[in-house]
């Protein structure tokens, strides 16, 4: 029996959310008195996989099949199921990402496991129950969910667990094959189109976000948002009406009907704070609101606020960040 952790890699690097997942899995393993093995998917390097030892992983299974570089639902599911069987894994931990949700939901059926997505804390195992806390009602509440299956799958929400770094520890990387056939690649993508990532920070992975609303007045003013984001090493986001009118691409739209983010810092510029917007951002650790209207509802959900004009305030903030060094 062990804990199996699914690690997503991209361009050789282990994704930040997967480092969090690895730490989560290692801590669950410790609770259960066992070890954590990772199975890696995507484009990985052996050195970066070995470095998962820092998160407490003892062994990493890796199938170097080139067609696994891109996400293929059928093949990934089979690979991870084979790894779970090899390791006799009782608990499988993955990221609450589009890949994690696609694979995790199929695995739940294939492995007859209980699945909890959007999980924000380590499990509680008192009284023979296995209970996890997960986000529900679009960030407006949490639910403690008991998983009754013999096997459990946990999809961990991004930025809810801190990735640990125990310098010097390395994991043993083992080559692994699930005997994948062409049929397993039937739903392989015909084409993969990556966004042009201004500043290189992906919104779903970001731990700082600078976001603009209708108060920004038009796309021509977005350099103000981008400059502050760049100075902070943050990703950029926007409210729904902003992406509806194509000032910004749809994948930047946060809220109840957009992406949910939970960064350490969320800076809202010219956003009123409608309940649907808050639903996507209210689990952020620190919220800063800049709005010229002191009555804007967003101030009620904020930790810090500036009542003022974004066009005057944003350049000052960018300047102040640069001066911090």
């Amino acid at each position: 029996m062990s804990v199996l952790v699914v690690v997503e890699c991209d361009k050789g690097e282990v994704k930040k959310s997967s480092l969090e997942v690895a730490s989560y899995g290692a801590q669950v393993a410790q609770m259960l008195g066992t070890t954590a093995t990772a199975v890696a998917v995507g484009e990985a390097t052996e050195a970066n996989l070995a470095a998962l030892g820092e998160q407490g992983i003892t062994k990493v299974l890796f199938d170097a099949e080139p067609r696994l570089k891109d996400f293929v639902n059928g093949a990934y599911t089979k690979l991870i199921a084979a790894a779970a069987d090899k390791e006799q894994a009782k608990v499988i931990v993955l990221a609450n990402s589009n890949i994690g949700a696609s694979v995790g939901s199929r695995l739940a059926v294939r492995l007859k496991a209980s699945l909890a997505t959007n999980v924000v804390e380590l499990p509680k195992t008192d009284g023979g129950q296995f209970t996890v806390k997960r986000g529900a009602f679009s960030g407006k509440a949490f639910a403690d969910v008991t998983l009754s299956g013999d096997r459990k799958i946990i999809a961990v929400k991004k930025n809810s667990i801190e990735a640990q770094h125990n310098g010097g520890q390395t994991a043993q990387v083992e080559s692994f094959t699930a005997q994948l056939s062409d049929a397993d690649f039937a739903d392989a993508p015909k084409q993969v189109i990556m966004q042009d990532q201004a500043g290189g920070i992906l919104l779903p992975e970001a731990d700082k976000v600078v976001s603009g609303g209708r108060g920004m007045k038009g796309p021509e003013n977005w350099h103000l948002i981008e400059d502050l984001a760049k100075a902070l090493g943050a990703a950029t986001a926007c409210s729904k009406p902003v992406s509806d009118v194509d000032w910004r691409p749809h994948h930047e739209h946060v809220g109840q009907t957009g992406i949910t983010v939970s960064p350490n810092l969320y800076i809202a510029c010219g956003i009123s704070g409608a309940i649907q917007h808050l639903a996507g951002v209210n689990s952020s650790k620190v919220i800063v609101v800049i709005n010229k209207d002191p009555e804007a509802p967003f101030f009620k959900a904020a930790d810090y606020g500036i009542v003022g004009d974004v066009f005057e305030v944003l350049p000052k903030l960018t300047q102040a960040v640069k001066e911090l060094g």
Partner: protein
Amino acid sequence: MKFLVCISNVPDTTTKITFTPDNKEFNKAGVQFVINPWDEYALTRAIELKEAQGSGTVTVLNVGEADTEPNIRKALAIGADDAIRVNAAPKDAWFVAQQIAHYAKEGGYEVILMGKESIDYNGFQVHGMVGELLGIPTVAPAMKLDMSGNTATLEREIEGGKEIVEVAAPFVASCQQPMCEPRIPNMRGIMTARTKPLKVVEAVGEGAATAVAEYQLPPKKQGVKLIDAANAGELIKLLRNEAKVI
């Protein structure tokens, strides 16, 4: 083609969430329920594809008790041809997925569309469970869906980009914007919806695999600390030294 659109009945997006005193159940009192916003993309796209094909049917399916019927009727008013209600409280995603898979198979549906996720339980998991139960591909979440004959071309969102995926029917897709502009019912739709068939069937399969032990509301915020706009740079110092987030 035969389209099956799964709709979930959820609290309106403006709902203030509260629970029963024992914190074991969502407090429905006074809450307005709507069709899950993501499911509206699935429904409208199915209707558009049917119209483009010039034949076929769009069936909506909901797992829920009788109180969900107003929203099922609304889906019929938007343009679905008929509806199935599986008469049971939706206990969890696994329970719901078994119902959808069973009735999808029984009815021989070729394209099964759902929303990206429910805005109440935020599971984002029914799609894969249904796909696995039926042994057919799932594409989740899909931002675009086109059909040519039996083949669908979809844009699937991945973190940081998208994949173009081609699958042959039958398949499952979970839908999100910008797939289409969700339609709203018109007068004629509302009139005809009253007489469209709504079949009530019994639940099948096993029970739930998970159970909610307790709900909690997030801790209340301390209150906002305001910084003078003339002195905006002060905020950055606070974020570094006090909040320690930069």
